[in-house]
Each structure stands twice: as structure tokens, then as C-alpha cells.
């Protein structure tokens, strides 16, 4: 029973981060109708950003977040403006493989700059943990989860309370009607992709205190984000956050009760199962 509760708690904590990564992917899909195959690489770059600021200036990742969030927003907006804008009306092949190409470029640029070694950021509270009964929760993971929750809350406020946010939701709901109502799609797309990239990178920054970074670290988070958004419904932000927790818990239970990598096999089996169950809805694009 204690193992079970421990696994659930650990799963919820990491699931919050999965949710934050996925909410960006879902936002991009909802507004641009593009699946970003480079999303995991944004997480990886966020991790390296926090690593560089920590090793060069001694900045705590939580402080770096204030710098790196805007930096990655601009980076995402640039990617949208220079690359994705040109394929928004193109066939699937161009849309899919443009972001696949981007993911290859980003992962291997990181390999050239940082090498293949794993890097980690150790913070003063790195070994501290909170014990609740028999359950042990490392503070690094609690802080990362709290950070993810706050950012998700801010995103919700932005989307529900600001004009730009409401505009984006309108564009996500029905792009054609939104454009008829005079919404400038280019601006909305720019903000959506910038926000999506910034959220993914922010998740990376929060992760780096307990998850070592390497150029291939993004692949795993990208794949898990696919599972999460398909489980939560592509384009649904609340769905992505909730499904993030579910996938985190499923993976965590798998890690506690199964040997080796069977936990990840379980996660991908969930992906295929959900894809099949939802295929009726996914047919309509």
C-alpha cells in the first residue's frame, strides 16, 4: 500500500511536468492545426538554457525561468514566422517533416555544442525531501510541480481574461469564422507557437534540477507529450493537463511494479489503444 501511494505521488509530480509540456503541444495544434514534432527538443533546449545559466552565472533554474521563458517565446515566434508560416496550407508531408527536420537540427546542434555527455544542475535543496507518513517526496520535484501548476494557471488566466487569449481560443475553435470576424491569423499563430515553445522550455527548466540533460533528452518528452495530448484530446488544454497526470501515474506505477522499460512499453500501448478508440473522431480533420 505504501509503495502504491508512493508511486501515485511520484507519478502526479512528474505528471504535472508532462502536462505542462503537452499543454504547449496542444495549444499549437489547436490554433495552427500542426503537430509539432520538435516539441521535445524545445524541452531539451530549456534544460540546456537552465544548465548554462546555472554553470556560468550560478542562477537557480527558478530565476532562469524568468529569463528563458521570454527568450523561448521569441524563439518559437521566429520559428513560426520563418518556417511554419510557409507550410500552414501545405500537405501533411510538408507539415510533418518540417518540424521533424527542425527537431533533427535542434538535437544535433545541441550535440555539437554540448557533446553527448549527460549534464545536471545541482541546487542547494537538491537532496532535501518532504516526508508525509511513509511517502517521501523530493523538494526538487515538488517545486517543479508547483512551478508547472502556476504556469498552467497563468496560461488559463491569459486565455480566459485577456483579449489576445480569447482571440486565440476563438481561432482554435473555428479558424475560418475567427478570420471572418477580423482576427489577424498571423499574429495569433505567432503568439500560439511562441507560447507553446516557451511552455515546453519552461518545463525543461523546471525538470533540470532532477533530470539530467543530454541532446537526446527531448525525444522521450516529445513522445510522452504525444501520448498525453492524444489521451487528453488534441487541442484541448484542460485535457492535456489532466492526461499529463494520468500518464505520469501510469508510468510511475509501471516503474514501481514492472522491471526495466516495461513502464514505457505500457505508456506507448496506452497511446495505440487510445488512438484506436478515438480513431472515429480523428478521422475528421
Amino acid at each position: 500500500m505504501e509503495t502504491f501511494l508512493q508511486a501515485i505521488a511520484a507519478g502526479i509530480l512528474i505528471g504535472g511536468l508532462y502536462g505542462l509540456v503537452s499543454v504547449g503541444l496542444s495549444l499549437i495544434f489547436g490554433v495552427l492545426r500542426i503537430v509539432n514534432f520538435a516539441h521535445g527538443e524545445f524541452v531539451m533546449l530549456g534544460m540546456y538554457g537552465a544548465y548554462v545559466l546555472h554553470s556560468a552565472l550560478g542562477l537557480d533554474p527558478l530565476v532562469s525561468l524568468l529569463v528563458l521563458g521570454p527568450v523561448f517565446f521569441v524563439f518559437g515566434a521566429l520559428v513560426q514566422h520563418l518556417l511554419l508560416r510557409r507550410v500552414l496550407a501545405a500537405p501533411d508531408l510538408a507539415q510533418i517533416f518540417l518540424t521533424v527536420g527542425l527537431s533533427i537540427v535542434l538535437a544535433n546542434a545541441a550535440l555539437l555544442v554540448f557533446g553527448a555527455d549527460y549534464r545536471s544542475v545541482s541546487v542547494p535543496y537538491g537532496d532535501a525531501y518532504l516526508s508525509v507518513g511513509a511517502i517521501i517526496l523530493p523538494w526538487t520535484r515538488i517545486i517543479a510541480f508547483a512551478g508547472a501548476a502556476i504556469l498552467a494557471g497563468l496560461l488559463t488566466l491569459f486565455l480566459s481574461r485577456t483579449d489576445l487569449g480569447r482571440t486565440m481560443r476563438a481561432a482554435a475553435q473555428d479558424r475560418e469564422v475567427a478570420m471572418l470576424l477580423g482576427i489577424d491569423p498571423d499574429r495569433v499563430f505567432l503568439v500560439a507557437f511562441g507560447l507553446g515553445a516557451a511552455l515546453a522550455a519552461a518545463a525543461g527548466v523546471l525538470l533540470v534540477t532532477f533530470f539530467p540533460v543530454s541532446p537526446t533528452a527531448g525525444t522521450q518528452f516529445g513522445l510522452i507529450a504525444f501520448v498525453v495530448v492524444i489521451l487528453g484530446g488534441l487541442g484541448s488544454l484542460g485535457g492535456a493537463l489532466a492526461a499529463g497526470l494520468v500518464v505520469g501515474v501510469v508510468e510511475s506505477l509501471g516503474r514501481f511494479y514492472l522491471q526495466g522499460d516495461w513502464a514505457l512499453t505500457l505508456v506507448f500501448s496506452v497511446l495505440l489503444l487510445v488512438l484506436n478508440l478515438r480513431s472515429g473522431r480523428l478521422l475528421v480533420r
Partner: protein
Amino acid sequence: MRALTPRAYLPGLALLLVVAIPLVTADAVLLNILILIFLFATLGGAWNILGGYGGQLSLGHATYFGLGAYGSTLLLVDFGISPWLGALAGAAAAMALSLVLGLSCFRLRGPYFAIATIGVAEIMRLVVIDLPDVTQGARGVTLPFVGQSWALLQFRGKTEYYYLALGLMLATVAATVLVARSALGYRLRAIGQSEDAAGALGHDPAWTKQMANFVSAFFTAIAGTFYAQYFYYIEPNTVFGISLSIQIALVAIIGGVGTVWGPVLGAFILQSVAQLTQVFLGSSRFGGLQLLVYGVLLVAVILVQPRGVIGLARRVYGAACGRLPRWSRG
């Protein structure tokens, strides 16, 4: 009196040239480069039949490749079965899995299909890692070298591998031509352009896609067996990895999807990039640089030349044919 035009004699000359290369040189580096070009042309060509003509964009073709590699290798290492039979067994396994994949994923469109194929390949990779009693797990499998043997597909030099790989590539090209000219090819292209319209014409799109999937899985798996026999070592992260799946698709896309010679051209371009990055920047990180250039090429092709480099190559070829002499015969 008919004239022998460049368009008639150039392909023959080219074929003569590639067949003659190992007869005039045993240079291992050159032959290795050409063998890798033939191998990736086979893989890109196999992907192209499903992805290029049928528009089903798989990002999990490593599934079939790995099944071919592991199928023949485990049969050889555990039971001493010849890789000739092993290749067929691996191909049969890949085709069986392609049916399962087809039944479960062909209802999905575009990016959903791509994501599903990634999921299948990742499950295969993880299962092979997590069943070390059967597969030797993440350590991979080393093939024992017993000496020159056609029966066991093992050779000291590169000449035999060269002709095997060339034959494999030409077989894939021939299969592509056959598919492209058949009714299946027309249905596939119709599906690639608009699945709803193709379905409305009364042909079952799922079955059309599955026929292409069978052919694609077959050649990809055979190439997997060839890879195992050529390198004498396989491990799950390489042969089932997402990186391989992406590279297979890249060969076809950079060369030109939905064309017979696009994947061959793509394999030639990508292998040239690989060699150049190694020659000019032979640092320990050249692997990163090579893939970085692949990524840049992919982005550039999609933005500038979405139909692939083959269009450019055709114009150059056409211009060359215009300038070359015509020989009269008869």
C-alpha cells in the same frame, strides 16, 4: 534508320558502370560508400511505395528493418539457420506485423498515423531490450564470422556485398515500377491525393494501403537482414530506433516522393553528405554534424523544392541528353 538517343543508351551505360566498379577496384572505402547508398536507396524506395505513392507517412519503418535484422540473426545464432531462410522468415514476420499495424492504424490520417507508427516502433525497441533471454537485450547480438560462405552470406571482401546490395536496390526499383504502373499504383496515388475521393470511387482504401504496406515491409526487412550480415552486429536502439525511421523517410523525401528514382538520388545525396562531413570535419562529433546537415537539407527541400531534388536532377539530365551525341544504328 533509327538513331540511338542519349535517353536510350545512358541508362545502359550507367548500369554497366555500376556493375563494373568492383571489377576494376577493390577499394574498401569506395565500395562501402556505394553499398550504403544501395542499402539506403532500398530503404527509401520501400518507404516510398507506402509513403510516397500512398501518402501514408510512416515514422516507424525501423519496425520492419529491425524485424528483418533480428529475425535472421536470431535464427542464425540460436539455430544455425541460413540467413537466406532467415531473411524470408524476418520478411514474413515484418509482413505479419505490417498487417496488424495496417488493421489498427490505417484508419488514422496524416500526423496521427505517423505518431502511431512511432509508437509501434518504440514498443518493438523496448520489448527487444526487455526480453534479454530471447534477444540478448540492449547489449545487442554479434554474428559469428565463420569464413567466406555464400550459404551463410558471409564474405571477407566487399565485392559480394556490393552485388547483393545492388541487386536489392534494383529489385526495389523494379517493384516500384511494377507498383507504379499497376492498378494498385493508380489507387495508391488516388489515396495519397484524397483518401475520401478514392474511397468514394468504390475501392477499399484500407486494402490498397495494406498491399503497399506488405511490399514496403518486405523490402525493408530484407534490407535489415542485409545490414546484420554486413555489419555482423545489431542492437535494438540502432535497428529499431526512431532515428533510423526518420532517416529512411528522409531518403525518399529529399530525393523525391512518389517517383521511381527519387529515393536512389536521395540515398546518393545523404551518403555524400555523410562522407563529406567525415572528411572535412572528422571530429568525434561528426555524427552530430552529419545529422544536422540532414535536418537542414530536409527543411530546405520542404520549403524550396517540396517534390524533392529529383525535379532538378531531371532538368540536368534532360539538358545533358540534349548535348550528348546520337548514334545511328542499322
